């Protein structure tokens, strides 16, 4: 093989390890992301045709621009970034392994000769005495001290701190991978659905947002009640659903949920997301006796039975009938019931909500009317399963810690050379760091001052 021509594999590897690719990818992701904010996403085809015309619509759709963050080309960009990140990190970690793992021998005194952050002073003690004097302070201020003799009969002390901070940048890069992994897990193994439950009812299936498919949950959800409260201005202040979770008909959990306080059960999370109003099922009915003129009222829901005083018979509320009609004319939402008079045949009674005097036409012993229909709500729930969330949250934590460490911690190395000079020694203190070098000169000055105080100069 020709040594001057790299193999395809290693050329690819180098390409993916390159930071130029990173910069290109980051800028491309930024630039293309803009498109998705200019073009409304996931609208109906008709909306797009109205905006872009037919040709424009077909052109944009071919490029997946109407759901671009899930398009193949956007995902390829993200995938390339992930590969870039993995290769680049693997390459650097393997190159720096000895340093990262703390396996490098202490550097030669020579390494500290040219550094900018340095101070030199003279002390009356000899190098060995100084080394013993300085060691505890340097251990406290920097870290474990390694000492050795120099060719010129002096001593060289070395200490370092914050070597671990070199891992920070890998934590940041690893966290980006965790976020991508979490997102992938969520989209492969999770679902995102919704369901509307009228108060008092129980459901076990929900509808998926993206496909519209209905799926069955491993438990049932009952909405006991829904409450909405308002500010004096009329803006809503709180939505609260009282939910019950049932497994095989048995109640296993009962809890209220609010907009920022969802309920989680068996890995599925239920969020308050909207509400609607329904014609109520509970009514207050009035029964007016034709003979005495007495009015009796009663709150009833379908199935309830009422023995009307004065021996006027028994009334059973049967059902609600949306958009009822009477002899072919629509009378709107109504209730129906059955009246069993003391004598004679039971009669069916129709009670349109909008016409309280409707039952007079029946000319019976008792006139029944709807006084009030209790407002009934349905709660709109978002029902999700996203097993990727813990991974994503771990990525969030790692990213914050990693950023803090890479930005504000550094790996510092201190070299202290003690050479015989006259009767005493000449002390040179030097410091290096992998970043924030501007902070070094003052740090060297502070440490030098403390050292001088120790040897009284």
């Amino acid at each position, binding site marked *: 093989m020709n040594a001057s021509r790299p193999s395809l594999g290693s050329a690819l590897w180098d390409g993916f390890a390159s930071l*130029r690719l990173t910069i290109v990818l980051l800028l491309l992701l*930024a630039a293309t992301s803009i498109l998705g904010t200019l073009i409304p996403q996931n609208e109906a085809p008709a909306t797009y045709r109205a905006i872009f015309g037919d040709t424009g619509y077909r052109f944009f759709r071919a490029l997946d621009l109407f759901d671009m963050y899930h398009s193949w080309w956007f995902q390829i960009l993200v995938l390339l970034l992930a590969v870039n990140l993995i290769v680049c990190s693997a390459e650097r970690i393997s190159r720096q392994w000895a340093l990262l793992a703390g396996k490098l021998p202490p550097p030669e005194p020579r390494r500290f000769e040219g550094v900018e952050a340095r101070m030199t002073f003279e002390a009356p003690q000899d190098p060995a005495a100084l080394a013993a004097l300085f060691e505890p302070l340097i251990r406290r201020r920097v870290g474990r001290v390694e000492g050795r003799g120099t060719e010129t009969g002096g001593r060289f002390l070395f200490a370092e701190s914050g070597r671990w901070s070199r891992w920070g940048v890998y934590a940041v890069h690893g966290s980006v991978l965790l976020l991508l992994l979490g997102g992938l897990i969520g989209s492969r193994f999770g679902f995102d659905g919704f369901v509307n439950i009228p108060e008092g009812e129980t459901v076990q299936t929900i509808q998926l947002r993206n496909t519209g498919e209905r799926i069955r949950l491993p438990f049932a959800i009952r909405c006991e009640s829904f409450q909405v409260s308002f500010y004096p201005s009329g803006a809503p202040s709180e939505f609260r659903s009282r939910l019950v979770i049932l497994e095989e008909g048995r109640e296993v959990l009962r809890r209220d949920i609010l*907009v*920022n306080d969802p309920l989680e059960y068996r890995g599925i999370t239920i969020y308050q997301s909207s509400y609607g109003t329904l014609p109520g099922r509970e009514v207050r009915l009035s029964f007016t006796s034709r003979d005495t003129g007495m009015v009796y009222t009663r709150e009833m829901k379908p199935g309830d039975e009422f023995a009307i005083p004065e021996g006027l018979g028994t009334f059973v509320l049967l059902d609600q009938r949306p958009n009822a009609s009477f002899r072919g004319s629509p009378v709107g939402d109504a209730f129906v019931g059955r009246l069993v008079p003391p004598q004679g045949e039971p009669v069916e009674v129709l009670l349109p909500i909008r016409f309280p005097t409707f039952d007079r036409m029946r000319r019976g012993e008792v006139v029944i009317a709807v006084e009030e229909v209790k407002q009934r709500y349905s709660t709109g729930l978002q029902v999700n399963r996203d097993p990727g*969330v813990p991974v994503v949250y771990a990525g*969030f934590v790692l990213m914050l810690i990693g950023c803090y460490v890479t*930005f504000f911690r550094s790996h510092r190395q201190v070299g202290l050379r003690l050479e015989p000079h006259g009767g005493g020694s000449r002390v040179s203190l030097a410091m290096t760091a992998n970043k924030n070098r501007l902070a070094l000169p003052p740090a060297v000055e502070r440490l030098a001052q403390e050292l001088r105080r120790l040897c009284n100069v």
Partner: protein
Amino acid sequence: MTSSILLSATTWIYGLAAFLYVAAWVFHRRRLEAPATGAAAVGLAANTAGFFLRWAESYRLGMGHAPLSNLYESLVFFAGMIILVHLVVERRSGSRVIGAFSAPFAFLALAYASLSPNISDRIQPLIPALKSNWLIAHVVTCFVGYAAFAVAFGVSLMYLLRTRRAAPGRLAARLPEPPLLDEWTHRLVVFGFLFLTAGIITGAVWANTAWGRYWGWDPKETWSLITWFVYATLLHARLVSGWRGRRIAVLSLVGFGAVLFTYFGVNLLPGLHSYQSPG
């Protein structure tokens, strides 16, 4: 409402500070610099007091929420953070000229908040989705980050003026040395990046508790990510490719453009980020 009076006073104090900083630079009157810093500090005190008073007032009105819930309140907080970041930079860099390029932003933010007819300064009750402690964490982290980016923008602008190839005028020559400006651009971007990261993360956690999704590609979210990409590019270009000076300064200007668009421009786009509707 006392807080409103205090906050309009703050606007004019920031205006005075900005004027003094600019005058000190343009007319080369070093004597004006100390009063400029003084005005900025007094303004910050008034801004802070106004912020907390408004918080207390919202309790008295029976709502009781941190004043971080609409455009007006976020601008008030933003202005305060710009001045705070600026004062720290001024102290640590030893250069007061920077004020001429950062105090005006605080003034503009507050002036826009008080004078724009589209922005109401009424204390409004929180809609259910905004009732979350994550809201506070999200807005605070985002705006600390934005403030650092705003000051970085000012410093980068100074860098570009200072190093203009066409004969730098006397005004430009009075700006700090380019390496100092380059260094402070970088430090501010690093600081802002940390907070922007935290802001995006707290926003994601909040969205997940409120709506069951930590990321939904709505325009506001997307633009904050775009901003993040731009600054991430800057950090890599500087650290790994060794970019310095002009190119970094230009990226910092682009980044702040993205910040402004995330903040204001997104309202012009289709889509919704409930919190951002002006009002």
